[in-house]
Every structure is written in C-alpha cells, then in structure tokens.
C-alpha cells in the first residue's frame, strides 16, 4: 500500500555535473520497499512540472538500527531531475511509494549478475543487500560513458561484490558497452552454474542483455523505464509489449506489471 510523504531533503550530494544522490526523510516508504521498486516524486506543489516522475529507491538509510529514509540516484535530463540536482537540505520532495513489482530474489547456490548502464545502477544497491543477506554471490557489471560517470564502486566492493566495468571511452574496464564483460563471463561460465541476470539501464542495453541471456539459456530480469503518468496503473501511459499466452503480444502497464519483467517476456521490436 503506497503512501505519499512530504519528505524533507536530508542531504544532497553531487557526484558529477549531472549525477546526484539525494537523501529523503521518508522512513515509511523506505521500510516498505523491496529492491527494484520505485517512488513517484514531485518537487513543490506547482503546476509546472505537473506530473510526478519515477525514481528507483537507491539506498535505504539507517541510523541506530532504525530506518530513517531513502536516497535516489538521479541523472539530470530535464526539469524534475534539474530540480533534484539543485535541491538543498530542508527542501520538501513529495514522494509516493513504494510502487511496482520488485526483483525476484534468488537463493544460493544461484549467483546474481547485475548489469547496470549509467543511472541504471540505482536499483542495485538495495538488491545487493537483499541478495547478500541470503548468502547469494553478487557480481556487478557496470557500464558508463567514462570513468567519471562510475559511482559507488567502493560501496559495492566493500560488500564483496565482484565488479566489472565498461566505459565507452575506455577510461575504465572494457572499452565499449557493458555487454562485453557480460558476454565474456557468460562464455566462460559452466552451464551447470545457476546464474540470474538482473539488468537496468537504457532500453537498447536491456534488449541486448535479454537477448544474450536467452542465447546462453540464462534467465534475466530487466527493469524498464517507460514514461509514467501516475505509477499506479491509472493512466495506461507506461505500457510495454509483452508476449501473451497465445503467441501474440499485449501492452502491459510497466508501473504495476513491472518495472521488472522477465527479459524473455518482453517483445523488444513490436
């Protein structure tokens, strides 16, 4: 059951010219949320921008053993993300959530490979924690334009996550897309090992990951990013074509039917 919280900004850390991590005092949402779920946010009560915008829950904040809030990892692309970048401590962000279907967790001996493109890193911090809690071995394959856009590597490494990088300019890891380390690892991994591939990033990347997973007979879960008007199933804006039982396809609302889908279910070129 989602709640709407007028969340105070606790901190706002700029990671680069475009990326920031904003901490919001929304403990109720943070407590209730599962990895892969998202919130719909709005800054101010104004009419421009009018609609809320979806953001993955990045971290769940704790102090003295209690949950105190959550963070969002945001990349500037327009009006709301600009406002998130500029927000200062004490500002209020209206935050509705948690929303959507979370990632399905796995249990050992299955291993988790998380494939992140750019700001698609966002859902993987909470996913990492949940998987580690269950004793699952976690790998992060993380691609960006350059090493200046790779964030939180320490965070993942400190938790024992195996990290592989790819940058388009070759400044860290493979030169090229994150699909490169993924393919190499898939090729090198024995079929008996049980792997779940989780992916979040731009849709062409998700498509490539899902196809490659299928090629190697691996299951995948991808978190898609569609333009969302409401986040609650009310508007039918956020649909994505999904294979139906009878060999056809139908549009599924990614806000309630997703944002996480089995990679194999999505019709990438409808």
């Amino acid at each position, binding site marked *: *059951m*989602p709640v709407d919280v007028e969340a105070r900004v606790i901190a706002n850390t700029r990671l680069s010219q475009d990326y920031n991590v904003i901490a919001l005092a929304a403990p109720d949402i943070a407590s209730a949320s599962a990895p892969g779920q998202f919130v719909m946010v709005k800054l101010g009560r104004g009419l421009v921008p*009018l*609609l809320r915008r979806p953001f993955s829950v990045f971290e769940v904040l704790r102090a003295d053993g209690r949950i105190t809030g959550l963070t969002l990892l945001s990349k500037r692309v327009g009006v709301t993300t600009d406002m998130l970048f500029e927000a200062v401590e004490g500002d209020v962000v209206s935050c509705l959530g948690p929303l959507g279907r979370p990632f399905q967790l796995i249990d050992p001996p299955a291993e988790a490979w998380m494939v992140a493109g750019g700001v698609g890193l966002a859902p993987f911090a909470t996913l990492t924690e949940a998987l580690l809690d269950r004793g699952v071995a976690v790998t992060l394959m993380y691609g960006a334009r350059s090493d200046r856009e790779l964030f939180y590597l320490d965070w993942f490494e400190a938790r024992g996550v195996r990290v592989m990088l790819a940058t388009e300019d070759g400044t860290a890891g493979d030169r090229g897309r994150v699909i490169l380390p993924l393919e190499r690892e898939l090729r090198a991994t024995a079929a008996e090992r049980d792997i779940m591939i989780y992916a979040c990033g731009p849709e062409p990347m998700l498509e490539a990951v899902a196809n490659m997973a299928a090629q190697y007979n691996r299951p995948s879960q991808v978190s898609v990013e*569609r333009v969302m*008007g409401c986040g*609650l199933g009310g*508007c*039918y804006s956020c649909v994505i074509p999904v294979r139906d039982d009878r060999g056809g396809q139908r549009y599924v609302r990614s806000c309630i039917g997703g944002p996480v889908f089995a990679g194999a279910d999505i019709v990438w070129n409808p």
Partner: protein
Amino acid sequence: MTDLSVQIGSLTLANPVIAASGCFGYGIEYADVVDLSLLGGVAVKGLFLAERQGHAPERIVETPAGMLNAIGLQGVGVHRFIKEQLPELRRRRAVVIVNICGSTLDEYVELARILSDTEGVAALELNISCPNIKEGGITFGCSLAGTFDVVSAVRKVTRLPVIPKLTPNVTDVASFARASEDAGADAVSLVNTFLAMAIDVETRRPSLSNIVGGLSGPAIRPIAVRMVYECRNAVKIPVIGMGGIASARDALEFMIAGATAVQVGTANFVDPFIWTKLLEGIRAYLTRHQMPRVSDLTGTLDTSTRD
C-alpha cells in the same frame, strides 16, 4: 450538517466528486489508496465491446500545466470488465459509471444493452468525444445529428442514466448539449480532452506515436469552465463538469459556473490522495459560506454588472 449529495437523473450521488474516465483505471487500481465508496462515483476507463490494444508508446507527454495523451482506449472490453473488475468494484461499494465507446451506433446500443442487464452499473457515460481514435466516437461527437442518434438509440435500450460526454473540439458545445437533451440524455458531461500535439524539435518528430493527442489538466480549465457555463444556460438536465480540476477551489468554480457534479482526471495522477482533500475543501467552503447543500451552489455565478 452539510449535504453533499447531488442528483443526476434518477441517480443520487453521495457527493459531487467523480473520478474521470481513463484517469482512474478501472477503479480497483486505486482501491488501496482511496476508499472507493467515498467518491461520488467512479467513471471507469472507456470500454469497447472487444478488448483493445491501444496505441504504441509514447502515449503521454507533459505540456505547460497540462499533459497530452493518446492511449487509444486500450482496454479489456466489456465482457472481461463485467467478469473481472465489476465484482471487485461492487465489493468496494463504488458507484460505477461505465464509459462506453463504439465504432458504430450498433456497438453503443449493444454495450448499453449488456450493461443494463448487469447488476452494479449506476450510469452510462457515452464517450462520443475521444480525440484519439479514428473510427467512431468523435465522429458522433462532432456532429449534432450523430450525437442525437447515438443518445436516442442508447436511450431506447436502457433505463440507466445516460450521460453523453461531449467534446470541446467544436464551435458551439451548447448545441451538442441541447441535442443530447432532446435525445433523452439524463445529463451531459464535459469536457473531454482538446485535440493537440507536441513536437520534439531536436528530432522533428511528434512527441506521441499517434502524432496528435488530447490535452488535459489545469491548462484547459478556463476553456472548460466557459463551456460548462454555456451548457448550463442551454439545457435543463444536469451538467457534469471537468477539465483541469486540481483543488476544491477548482471544483467549486465548475459548480458555480453550472456543474451539478464534477470529474477529476489528470490531478489524480499527481495526487492519488486528492479525493478526501477535495471533499474536505468543498465542505469547508460550504460551511464558511453558510450553504447547507452543495446542490445550492450549482449555477450561482453572479453576472450582474459591477458598480
């Protein structure tokens, strides 16, 4: 005690605040965040006889104080609705207004027949005004004869309140309200969205896959209020007003202009908890202005010249 009830034909609504069609799913999507029985009514997403896929994404884009949509009436069709959603709506004690769309006159009639035979439908809203589909719908809504014909045909087969939903994309919306009244409508609702478009100037492509879409939200409110005012002066049947309502003040504006009840669409996307705020705001206003009944507010616009 403030009396919030209003009368739409034979139907008494507990209050004048209705969820607008297409902006509240089938209602059940919102059952977790709002007690559906507290709403005056729930106008469910537009239904055809058959299931529909709707348009390819992108289906919405934000505009100044508004949004465009071209959903294309994706929907489960009337039969699945009756089987899958309606029972849950009844369990939640929602007052269900079914918004129906047809490609032909016969389809409207057929839909009306089916729904009249179904327990738990409070009223029929005839969507003859969706700007997002080529066939049917708006072709009736943009012609006086078409409007008259659809409404009278549906009228003949149902005792449910019949509420044609009018398009604002016409020269004289009041004449469509009159045609509806003449054809036996119990009320009219307006406005549906304004045909509009947005372009991504960098790619020089339309922002919506359907090229054009419908404009809704606060941006259109002043036009919608004017149209409600015109209809109220043209017909005796109740007018259900909508278009950009985002606060109790806005709902009151429509009622003062002539609406008996109001619908709220886009604002529900922004704030799904808006419903109690609207009701509280309306109640507070009535108390402050010492009006015991909300229905006394309808059409109270004072147009006497100022000093």
